[in-house]
């Protein structure tokens, strides 16, 4: 009788060792992920009538709980955890819970709350107004009603959004290239679907979704290729090792390092819409359901800039001289192309898309300061821009003609005379985008430009000057919108502003007030961003 083999527990290969995981440090991530999973269950088991209410409540509650958990996590900073290769003692999958990561997580969570609240808008209908229950039917048609009756509600957007938020939170937290890639895909896939769910102008939306997916896959390929090259260079994907390897590495290997570093950046720059990887932005921003656009513009940008900061300041910091020039070129192109192209836009959503491209350029200027001050300024910029942009897109979703969003600029003529409050709020947000003092936009731009001039050397100064000139160009664009709203006569078939529910009103109000508050009293957040600007290695 041979002894009965003990029941083999599924264990990791001997070479890999599980580090001690500090669950409090990753509690925010776990909460969001758990909420998303529960959302899937709700989708399967909750009754149709109550599903929307449950999903919205669940999502908001999960986000707020995760935001509260950040306070706990902040006491557990500095941990790098994950799998360790037992034979070489190398870390394979690592999370860095540090100031920038937690700041970004909190930002994404709070902006996510506003995004979810905007998506939840129903205007009295059964499902979320912006999303279609059946991609083949026209809004309000019998087919659509039949689809809704058959149970094809669109409350799955909330779990999808939660998964995206989970990916976004993971993105700036991962401390190795593979983890970063996983996070990139986790955040992207739900967004591809969300972009294609628009209820009106469905073909545009579906086209946008497909384009976003194709180009996103393309950029992911660049990222992976870059990862492969860097692994070939350093023999590791862990940022700590990468940094050490570059410091010690021979110049002869630069043939691997320089393209590798840049290609990895390409994958991230794609997500923020930096030129020349921006081409998807206007099409997708225009096609996606407007609340999704606002959410993407604010949160994806935050997550991707968090990742760019970590890659540039932790993973590839020692090889900075090799890749800085590439990023400088990208920043210059992004600012110039974004602002120049915004001049001739005639569609509000495309205009805001190009504005978002230009802003990505301005934020890159802050990244290129290579200093803690620059990190703080970038963090501040992302929060300020996020609040303004979510509110702006939420307002765009209210201005309608015959039930559909009126996004052509000419349709906005004379809006200020008939709806002074809404148009006033929008005008204020335009001023913030333009960077007029007493708005958060001014403080943000001042922060990144002064950081660039302070520590970015001659390049930083050039970037700041170009940034200021490009800001001047964009002022024209925003001022034109304001002039159009307040000083032009409304056309005969004038648009109307539909009255939103409490949730959308809340996100517009919070977004606008935050824009004002961060412009008038920026010091609290500036201090916080400054304190959160230290990376753990």
């Amino acid at each position: 009788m041979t002894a009965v083999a003990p029941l083999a527990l599924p264990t990791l290969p001997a070479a890999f060792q599980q580090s001690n995981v500090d669950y409090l440090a990753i509690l925010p991530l776990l909460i969001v992920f758990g909420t998303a999973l529960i959302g899937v269950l709700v989708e399967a088991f909750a009754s149709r009538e109550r599903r929307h209410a449950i999903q919205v409540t669940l999502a908001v509650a999960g986000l707020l709980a995760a935001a509260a958990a950040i306070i706990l996590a902040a006491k557990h900073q500095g941990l790098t955890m994950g799998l360790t290769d037992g034979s070489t003692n190398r870390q394979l999958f690592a999370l860095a819970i540090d100031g920038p990561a937690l700041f970004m997580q909190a930002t994404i969570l709070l902006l996510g709350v506003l995004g979810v609240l905007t998506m939840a808008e129903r205007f009295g209908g059964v499902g979320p107004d912006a999303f279609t229950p059946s991609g083949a039917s026209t809004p309000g048609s019998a087919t659509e009603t039949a689809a809704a009756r058959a149970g094809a509600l669109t409350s799955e957007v909330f779990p999808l959004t939660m998964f995206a938020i989970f990916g976004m939170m993971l993105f700036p937290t991962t401390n190795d290239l593979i983890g970063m890639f996983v996070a990139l895909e986790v955040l992207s896939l739900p967004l591809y679907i969300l972009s294609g769910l628009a209820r009106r102008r469905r073909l545009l939306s579906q086209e946008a979704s497909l384009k976003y997916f194709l180009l996103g896959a393309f950029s992911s390929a660049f990222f992976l290729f870059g990862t492969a090259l860097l692994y070939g260079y350093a023999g590791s994907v862990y940022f700590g090792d990468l940094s050490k390897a570059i410091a010690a590495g021979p110049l002869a290997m630069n043939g691997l390092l320089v393209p590798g570093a840049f290609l990895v950046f390409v994958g991230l720059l794609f997500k923020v819409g930096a030129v020349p990887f921006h081409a998807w932005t206007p099409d997708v921003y225009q096609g996606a359901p407007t609340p999704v656009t606002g959410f993407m513009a604010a949160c994806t940008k935050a997550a991707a800039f968090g990742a760019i900061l970590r890659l540039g300041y932790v993973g590839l910091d020692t090889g900075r001289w090799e890749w800085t020039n590439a990023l400088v070129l990208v920043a210059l192109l992004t600012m110039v192309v974004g602002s120049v192209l915004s001049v001739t836009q005639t569609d509000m959503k495309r205009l805001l898309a190009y504005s978002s491209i230009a802003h990505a350029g301005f934020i890159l200027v802050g990244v290129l300061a290579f200093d803690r001050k620059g990190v703080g300024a970038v963090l501040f910029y992302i929060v300020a821009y996020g609040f303004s942009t979510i509110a702006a897109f939420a307002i765009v979703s209210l201005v309608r003609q015959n039930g559909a969003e009126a996004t052509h600029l000419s349709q906005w003529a004379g809006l200020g005379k008939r709806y002074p409050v809404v148009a006033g709020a929008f005008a204020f947000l335009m001023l913030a985008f333009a960077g007029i003092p007493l708005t958060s936009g001014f403080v943000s731009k001042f922060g990144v430009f002064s950081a660039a001039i302070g520590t970015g050397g001659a390049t930083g100064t050039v970037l700041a000057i170009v940034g200021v000139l490009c800001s001047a160009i964009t002022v024209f664009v925003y001022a034109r919108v304001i002039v159009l709203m307040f000083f032009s006569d409304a056309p005969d078939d004038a648009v109307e502003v539909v009255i939103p529910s409490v949730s959308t009103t809340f996100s517009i109000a919070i977004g606008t007030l935050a824009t004002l508050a961060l412009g008038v009293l920026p010091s609290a957040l500036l201090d916080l961003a400054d304190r959160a600007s230290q990376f753990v290695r």
Partner: protein
Amino acid sequence: MGTLVQTLASSSSTLSTYAAGLATHEGEAHAATGVTAYAWLLVALPLLGAAVLLLGGRRTDRFGPVLATALSWGAFVVGALVFLAMLGRGAEDRAVGINLFDWIAAGSFKVSAGLLVDQLSMVFVLLITFVGSLIHVYSIGYMEHDADKRRFFAYLNLFVAAMLLLVLANSYLLLYVGWEGVGLASYLLIGFWNYNPAYATAANKAFVANRVGDFGLSIAIIVMFFHFGAVDFATVLGAAGSNANQGFMTAIGLMLLLGACGKSAQFPLQSWLGDAMAGPTPVSALIHAATMVTAGVYLVVRSAPIFEAAPTAQLVVVIVGAITLLFGAIVGCAKDDIKKALAASTMSQIGYMMLAAGLGPVGYAFAIFHLLMHGFFKAGMFLGAGSVMHGMNDQVDMRRFGGLSGAMKITWATFAVGWLAILGVPPFSGFWSKDKIIEAAFIGEGWRPWVFGLAALLGAGITAFYMSRLFFMTFHGKKRWTDDVHPHESGKLMTVPMIVLAVGSAFLGLILGPTGLFTSWLEPVTGAEPEGAHPVIPVPVLMALTLVLVAAGGALAWLRYWRDEVPVTAPAGSLITQAARKDLYQDQVNEALLMRPGIHLTRSLVFADSKGVDGAAGGLAALVGGTSSRLRKLQNGFARSYALTMLAGVVAILGALWVMS
């Protein structure tokens, strides 16, 4: 993070009061305790009134005026309590700094918004709140039939708040906020009846003339920041007293003086005050006689260490004061409009104060003393003039007055007290303050005491003439009324404030002057009067000389405007009379020197702008637009092109990197 303005709400809960370590140039300011900690209410109460009335709209029409008046009295009560608390402390412990909140923190440049409650600011606080509140009461009667009186009271409250902020500020920057605030309130109130284009123009004129002065003040603040790196009184005045660069001090002093000239209607920025009489008479009494126009004197006295470190600037202050006191007096002799005559007199009296303020420690206390006395008697006389206008269908031409003493007994009596006070007849208040200024002007060596002393002396004589002329033409002599007027005494709401002010004009000088109460009160701030400084003419002789001149001026007026018939239309008059009627051609001078070259400059600038700047801007815009249209074509909607763009971008940038390395 750079220049970021922090403005924290100063709600009572967040209000922190602690010793700001404000070293005035004489001593340390102490921590605010007890009632003094609530000194911010002085500004907050009237500001609240203005906000409620302006934001509340027509809903507040009914109770607005009473609310505004109550809040103004509330500010007075706070002021009185703070004053009593101050009296309870020793002379050296009276100055108190109250830090409200960190206002601006931009790198090394920090300004905290705070109040400086010391002896000097307290004098102003009591004057502003007391006279201001009386005038609020008077206005309830005066503006009774005005449809828009809510707005009027809102502006009055706004003015009181801004003026209190001006005198309580602990830094030049916060003072500047109040300075602009009173300018705004003054502008709004001069043009209160702006449906009359002439009144609206008067408001604009006041605004523009003040703006010139304000530029001076702002430049002074900029130079201060450049030189001292700070703008709070403690640092600036402390440093000015010790090791200061005289060139900088002169520059700051002259620029401060420019600001003071604008606000206080001193030569050469005096032209707006006469026209400012377009505002309702209570406004003329409060803003353009008792308080706002004296802000320039406050500024000079507050900045004493700067002027003492810059003798040139100090001399210019005296010269400006002397010129203005004569200028105003001469203009006052020829005006037939009762309010404009009073305005000229105000200008002249502030000239006295300015002269005294420029004399240094011998004059500071008397400048402020005269300011206080003037606040009482001039406000009283303006209110009297308002009462007369009320009874005379809003006429202002004194040639159509006369013999009103019978019809308006209370107005006549209170006006008479004010008249005796401004003449400097003992024991009325003006005697104790103006005579001291004349004495101080005669102190010194060389040519100065003779020039400035004689100017002040001569001014006293002319003052006696034109004020008596005004008084006699209005209240005595033959009745020259137009047919449709039926003069009557005004109601209690108007007469009681006049009586209170008259009592003050009669006795306040006697109480505070000869007893030395006032000078010793101010001594910690303005410094002691130097020992052994004697006028070049013995004091009794000087006093007698002054009284003789005053009597002569009064007698001349009596002869011409009481005993003799006053023609109802103005006679042609001598050349000098004609000039004086036209304010010594000041408007013409301004027009020739400033307006016409200004217009030509503007025109040529507009030309250059449209041809050069607009051309360049237009070309640039066309370039951007064109580039934009061309670049737009790249965005063709095909995913394959977009992917190609990305690939081309990657290749191009990697190629560029390769070339660069």
